């Protein structure tokens, strides 16, 4: 990649060619202060994206020619080695010269109904729901089950989330469904209990039948239409969308691929859902499981010492055809991404959903 002098940039912007996996090319013009993603969308070329803030890496692409660089001062969730290999997050990158960018998916992906990017951009609605149950599967975890109103037409894909307005407050919180669309109208969520947290406090006083407002579905953290081996890494209540994805994988068309679930909690005392995981191991002979209980986990707990990222070894990577799905706190996601890339996983096949406790 030859670096170009800023003086060479035309006033109207620079031409950029987007080359898709299926050979289709689209030419766009990217203005001086415009991000490449925004330029593409403005010119009617739909690209895959989600967070638009340089983090989720959904929009990662490879610069083949020219000069495309992140806006100065932007934190970008790419490793130095990835940047050196030409990877860029188009949602926060400017084009400084005529460039060619390779997208890692076919142009037809965008036309697919229910495709990840369409989900991310799709319409969501506010619907009414009622509390069906509140349970306490772990010392610091609550399970909230709700039923959405009949005829609301609510549907979603495994891995997506909704926003819930915490009853009695004006606060909205986001939770991934731990269930699949088959369980509709019932939805289940895992809530990490935090002192002073709006939802945490609500759960302690929730009653069956309480009315809720739910907005969604949202998110593009869904199963990709690939046949490969799968690695799922979940930390704490990040298990929710992962369970939904595993259940979707079990019911998906075609032969079931081998899968590995690595799930961890910060301590053995906080560990939860062991029974739910054992049930899925019974249902899916091809599912292997690693359970981690944090630094202080003792052998008697039946849990591995350490975190669910460390529990993944090089032998677990089933070659370049492996897809990885991660859900947990931001630090876990970043560590997992680094670890998996270090073990040889293709960074474009790592899909992540971050959550923040609130």
């Amino acid at each position: 990649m030859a670096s170009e002098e800023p003086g060479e940039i035309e006033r109207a912007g620079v031409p950029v060619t987007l080359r898709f996996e299926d050979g289709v090319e689209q030419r766009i013009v990217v203005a001086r202060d415009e991000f490449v993603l925004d330029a593409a969308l403005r010119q009617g070329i739909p690209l895959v994206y989600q967070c638009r803030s340089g983090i989720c890496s959904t929009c990662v692409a490879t610069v083949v020619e020219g000069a495309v660089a992140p806006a100065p001062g932007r934190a970008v969730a790419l490793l130095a080695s990835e940047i050196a290999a030409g990877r860029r997050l188009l949602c926060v990158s400017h084009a400084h010269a005529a460039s060619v960018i390779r997208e890692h998916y076919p142009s037809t992906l965008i036309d697919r109904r229910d495709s990840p990017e369409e989900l991310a951009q799709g319409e969501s609605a506010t619907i009414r729901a009622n509390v069906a149950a509140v349970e306490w599967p772990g010392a610091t975890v609550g399970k909230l089950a709700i039923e959405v109103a009949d005829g609301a037409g609510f549907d979603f894909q495994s891995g997506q989330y909704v926003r819930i307005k915490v009853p009695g407050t004006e606060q909205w919180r986001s939770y991934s469904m731990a269930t699949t669309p088959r369980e509709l109208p019932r939805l289940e969520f895992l809530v990490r209990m935090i002192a002073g947290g709006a939802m945490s406090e609500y759960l302690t006083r929730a009653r069956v039948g309480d009315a809720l407002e739910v907005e969604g579905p949202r998110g593009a953290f869904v199963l990709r239409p690939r046949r490969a081996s799968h690695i799922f890494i979940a930390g704490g209540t990040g298990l929710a969308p992962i369970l939904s994805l595993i259940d979707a994988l079990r019911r998906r068309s075609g032969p079931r691929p081998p899968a590995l679930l690595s799930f961890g909690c910060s301590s053995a005392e906080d560990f939860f859902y062991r029974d739910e995981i054992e049930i899925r191991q019974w249902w899916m002979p091809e599912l292997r499981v690693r359970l981690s209980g944090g630094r202080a986990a003792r052998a008697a707990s039946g849990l591995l010492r350490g975190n669910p990222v460390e529990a993944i070894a090089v032998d677990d990577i089933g070659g370049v055809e492996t897809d990885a799905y991660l859900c947990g706190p931001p630090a876990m996601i970043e560590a997992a991404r680094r670890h998996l890339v270090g073990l040889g996983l293709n960074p474009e096949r790592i899909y992540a959903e971050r959550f923040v406790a609130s």
Partner: protein
Amino acid sequence: MKPDDKPPIDATARKPIVPNRLYAPYLEASWGFKNAWYPALFSSEVGENEVKGVTIASHDIALRRVKGRVHAIQDRCAHRGVKMSLRPTCLTDETITCWYHGFTYGLNDGTLKTIVASPDDPLIGQVRIRTYPVEERAGIIFVFVGDEDYAPAPPLTADLPIQITDDANPVAHILDAHVYVRGIHREGNSNWRIAVENGFDPGHLLIHWDNVIVAATDRRMGLGARPIAEDAIKIIDEPNGPRGMMNMYNTRAYKFFMENKVIGMKARGKTPYYARTSVYLPGVLLVEHWPVPGWAQYEWYVPTDDRHHVYWEVLVGHCRDDQERREADYLYDHFFEPLALRDFNDNDVFAREAMQDFYENRDGWNAETLCAFDESVIMWRKIAARFNRGIQDPPHRRGR
């Protein structure tokens, strides 16, 4: 430490798993298991150039035999959805034509080759209907039913009973050389699972207590049998082979009850025998040494929809030559079919159809009250939940 795949379980830290969660996928399988080999018709039912329609687990399938070979193709015309088998129309050896507007599909790949009424139609070559893998063995046409992208199909043997080897006089396997295979199939008015569970139920001998075959052959048949040891039920999980379970009636792991003093009932008969049963995915029963020693009865309960199945009863024996074959035909015609497949199994059909209302309309899967001998029913449900290759969706959900 290299992480172990299955960390040891601390029994004290663990909540017990509710049994019916373990077999929850089985309860979802109202329309059957998909991605499995099912018998469609006997070979003799599809003559050269004939077309016959069958429905298996909601898949409508047309079978056509051309130059001896049977092809299986979707029995729904892409155009207006009619079943082509309703009025079979075949104009070439390589195609099947819909009788309505003449949409004509290639038998090998289902591609639209021409339309009788629109030979230059732009749809030609662009539209296709699906085809299904077929294996014709032992006088039965088997079809692999399920996801079109489930490829390659596993071998037929993976969905058949195992070859019996642990018996001094093992019964014939349906794919053996010199095998004699005859039987019947009929519609069953119940969900397929109710039929399977009746097939190997060790507690239902009461309905056979007074059957002609039992009395006439002086069988010493117990009132019932109950597993009393851990090895009463053997799980079968062969790599790329059959998955199922076997009731080890031939061992002391089962206790047979010969008398019930409460109601003063005693087993009759002096001829000791055992008819060991085993059951396999996707719902195949093997009864060894039945209706007489040396023979085997195979049964399939092929789902049609969520409240009907096709009940297959097939007898398998060995015949080395035409003389033995003639003798077998005589036995089949005058003994096996009337007394075993009809008289005896009619009682099973009666029981299955009697259960249907409870399981369909009265929450039977939750409301049932199972007892000690039902361990094998529970085991089957768990095994089926684990080893199936997928759960068939009802037709309106397919492709979602």
